[in-house]
């Protein structure tokens, strides 16, 4: 990596203690870089507790716009004595170690090959502030100030951000600016600056925004017209419904009556949360729930009901590291099989895989359309990395002219016209029957919804033929779906290489970077990003068009490969897995190394 320039190209890591208010200072740092027109990727690495344990915040800066995580720390800001020993060791040779030098530093922590930048943070705070909570909070701001000098962050940008942050609490602006200045001044007085790694204003980010995926999902549900949200708190999905709530309060309160055009219920558990969402969808509201792994397991009986009784449903699964409670504050893409085949019996569910907050927004909205059209659950598989971290991404767009499509629903008038309506009758030959909302018509359109077998007219039956007909219609519906779910995205206009790379979800950033790195080594690939399940024809074609494909996944068991092989009848030997499942977002370097080693050991692809 030595050839990458040091300007706008480095990783800063903050080592903090959770519960000390460092998050907003660190975000200030990241956002300032973004405002300087440079690509930045912050990642919060936090423990599964509330206060007092080590937490890290990585900020990668990338001139080239690489938004994936990169291992190796160029500059460490360590304000946590608990983790200092490890923190020192994780700095790359030649890197910098910024620390609170009020009490000096343990000689054991001194390495020859890195640079130490002591700032007496505690001393400065004690001198300046009386209140202990203030001392703690401003300590964070002071180090941001110091960094701004070391790395060349523009003071005006910081001032603007602080002004925006404290809108309404203007009194706080000045003390914060002061703290920034203190940090800067200390550097000016004691160190050479800026460092070799540093920032230069650019105009790279265009009209991008910076947003987390969970907020984007919540907003997508607002735009889709979801009116009912039922949920049970679980990290890392909690902020999906929190965002939905905030946006609903902003956009969905009747200005005249002060009443809500939405209903949000914190359920008693995940079984109840999904039951409520099913009930609301059955009754004609767009409704959704959000959860993470353990919730998906608990929801699986109800998912089977929704599949078989054909009830629309949007479920947002923000994946975390499993199995079981696993590492609840670490990321993974490991609920693919559990979601795709959730529930006993012959059951399958459509999945969508967003890669960016922008896509979280779009796909959430699209998920409601799909769910209602196909009268079946649509499960969005996002993850902790996408959901809880801020990402630089394309701005959100909405086409006001596109009508909301509620699918095949008969109203009273239409019911009057229909000769004999059958809830499970395939009129259009696409496997998708017509439904009715309760209460539509005094004498027509009522039926009994159930998880048991029934005939085309919703009458209970144990007749083998009727059962098989229904199961086959569900299969046909599945086929129909293939051309309607989000299509894959291709990096190239047309295939040019013998070998392909496939990725999905948050692997997008690292994958694209890896492809560039490999190209530098004259290893060229076509690339496809999967965006949904069932897979549409293009996915099949891409795989068949290549001798072998590398499939990048963030789980142990190659779960996407399983469903690809299973659904597309692809020879498993034609798919080579590139796996990462240690709970940290995958890196380009990991992908490059894995592909290179597989090329050397298993596949001979270089001509």
């Amino acid at each position: 990596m030595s050839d990458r320039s040091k300007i706008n190209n480095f990783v800063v890591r903050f080592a903090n203690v959770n519960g000390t208010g460092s998050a907003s200072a660190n975000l200030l740092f990241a956002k300032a870089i973004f405002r300087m027109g440079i690509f930045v990727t912050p990642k919060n690495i936090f423990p599964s507790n509330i206060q007092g344990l080590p937490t890290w915040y990585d900020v990668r800066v990338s001139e080239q716009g690489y938004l994936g995580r990169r291992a190796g720390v160029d500059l460490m800001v360590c304000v946590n004595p608990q983790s200092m020993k490890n923190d020192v060791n994780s700095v790359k040779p030649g890197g910098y170690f910024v620390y609170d030098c009020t009490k000096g530093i343990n000689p054991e922590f001194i390495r020859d090959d890195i640079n130490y930048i002591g700032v007496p943070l505690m001393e400065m705070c004690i001198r300046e502030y009386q209140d202990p909570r203030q001392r703690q909070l401003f300590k964070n701001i002071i180090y941001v100030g110091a960094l701004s000098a070391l790395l060349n962050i523009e003071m005006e940008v910081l001032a603007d951000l602080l002004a925006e942050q404290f809108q309404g609490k203007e009194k706080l602006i000045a003390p914060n600016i002061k703290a920034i200045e203190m940090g800067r001044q200390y550097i000016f007085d004691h160190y050479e600056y800026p460092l070799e790694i540093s920032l230069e204003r650019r105009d790279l980010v265009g009209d991008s925004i910076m947003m987390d995926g969970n907020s984007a999902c919540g907003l997508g549900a607002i735009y889709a017209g979801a009116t009912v949200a039922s949920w049970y708190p679980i990290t890392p999905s909690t902020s999906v419904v929190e965002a939905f709530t905030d946006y609903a309060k902003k956009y969905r309160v009747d200005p005249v009556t002060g009443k809500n055009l939405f209903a949000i219920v914190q359920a008693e558990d995940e079984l109840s949360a999904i039951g409520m969402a099913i009930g609301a969808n059955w009754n004609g509201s767009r409704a959704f729930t959000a959860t993470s792994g353990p919730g998906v397991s608990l929801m699986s009986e109800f998912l089977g009901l929704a599949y078989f009784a054909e009830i629309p449903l949007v479920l947002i699964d923000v994946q975390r590291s499993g199995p079981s409670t696993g590492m609840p504050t670490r990321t993974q893409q490991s609920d693919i099989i559990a979601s795709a085949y959730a529930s006993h019996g012959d059951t399958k569910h459509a999945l969508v895989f967003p890669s960016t907050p922008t896509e979280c927004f779009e796909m959430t909205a699209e998920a409601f359309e799909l769910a209602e059209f196909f009268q079946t659950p649509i499960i969005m598989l996002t993850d902790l990395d996408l959901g809880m971290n801020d990402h630089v991404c394309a701005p959100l767009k909405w086409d006001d002219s596109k009508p909301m499509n509620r699918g095949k629903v008969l109203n009273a008038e239409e019911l009057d016209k229909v000769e004999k309506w059958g809830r499970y009758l395939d009129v259009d030959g696409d496997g998708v029957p017509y439904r009715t909302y309760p209460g539509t018509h005094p004498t027509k359109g009522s039926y009994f919804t159930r998880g048991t077998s029934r005939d085309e007219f919703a009458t209970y039956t144990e007749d083998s033929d009727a059962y098989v007909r229904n199961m086959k219609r569900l299969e046909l519906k599945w086929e129909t779906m293939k051309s309607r779910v989000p299509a894959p995205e291709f990096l190239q206009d047309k295939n040019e290489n013998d070998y392909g790379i496939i990725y999905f979800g948050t692997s997008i950033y690292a994958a694209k970077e890896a492809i560039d790195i490999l190209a530098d080594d004259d290893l060229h690939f076509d690339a496809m990003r999967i965006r949904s399940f069932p897979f549409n024809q293009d996915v099949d074609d891409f795989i068949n068009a290549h001798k072998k494909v590398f499939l990048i996944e963030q789980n142990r068991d190659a779960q996407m490969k399983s469903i690809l092989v299973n659904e597309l009848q692809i020879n498993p030997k034609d798919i080579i897995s590139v796996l990462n499942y240690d709970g940290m977002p995958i890196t380009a370097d990991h992908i490059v190394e894995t592909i290179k080693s597989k090329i050397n050991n298993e596949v001979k692809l270089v001509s």
Partner: protein
Amino acid sequence: MTYIRPKFRHPDLKTNDLGYTKTVYEGSLSTLCAGCGHDSISAAIVQSCFELAIQPHRLAKLSGIGCSSKTPAYFLSQSHGFNSVHGRMPSVATGSNLANKELIYFGVSGDGDTASIGMGQFVHVIRRNLNMVYIVMNNGCYGLTKGQDSATADEGSKSKSGSVNMFNAIDLPSLALELGAGFVAQSFSGDKAQLIPLIKAAIKHPGFAIINVISPCVTFNNNPGSTKSYDYVREHIELTSTVDFVPFQEEITTSYEAGAEQDITLHDGSHLQLHKLESEWNPEDRMSAITALQKTKINGEILTGLIFIEPESKDLHHVLNTVDIPLNQLTAKELCPGSVALEELNAELR
């Protein structure tokens, strides 16, 4: 199997205010065992809805799984029904209700469905005061899986196979009272005269209304020694009161001797007239209702009738402060903030 009930209609069959005969309120032919208590309850539901002149399509009937949970197929064919999964009807009812506050939500469950697998949802639907009728067809056993004891089986009750239940029974009305339910009643499938006014009042109650109906399982729990058999229940029944439901605008005609009578005005202006048989109990006082239940329990009796009512009940929609128009009728116009708002948001996120 589908059964078409022969639709023979007597020319001068009585009609209700909507001009409907009772047959309009019937369902398909029951496939329960002949003599099952649940069928009597279905009949009482049919009668109540007929008498109240409910528009069948404005009622949604929901249930879990069990013989009891099948009954929604056997009443009100014109109503939408939802036979969900075992024990989870309350959550489905909650979501449905949130989507459309204008329908009547009528839930049917069994004692297995409610007191075992469904306990969590039962407790929480009460806590949320969902505006619904919740009827438990309580036979003290799992009918559909062939007669295992349920959690409402009384301690000491003998099963058909002769084994004696050693566990404490869960008393659903007491539990509902403890959890703050605003309408709590108990009845017996064999007592239609009592059941019908209770169902009507429950439908009119603007919040969660539970009726625990002892409903003998003739096939698995009607043996001597069972405390849920027809004979046992008949012998141990004790009435809080006789109940008359008087619809809004109808004149109150019955009159009891002074003191023993209590008139409760319901939310919509209809009345419940109680002829009290228990002197120390006041149906509008929760503590008194709890005590009355505990006392009869200790005496080995089964208290039936209206046990507690709080006529001014604030339901979940009230707590959530939802708009008056049903959420499922809102359109993109009201719901989607549109592209302009989105542009503003984008700007804030830069």
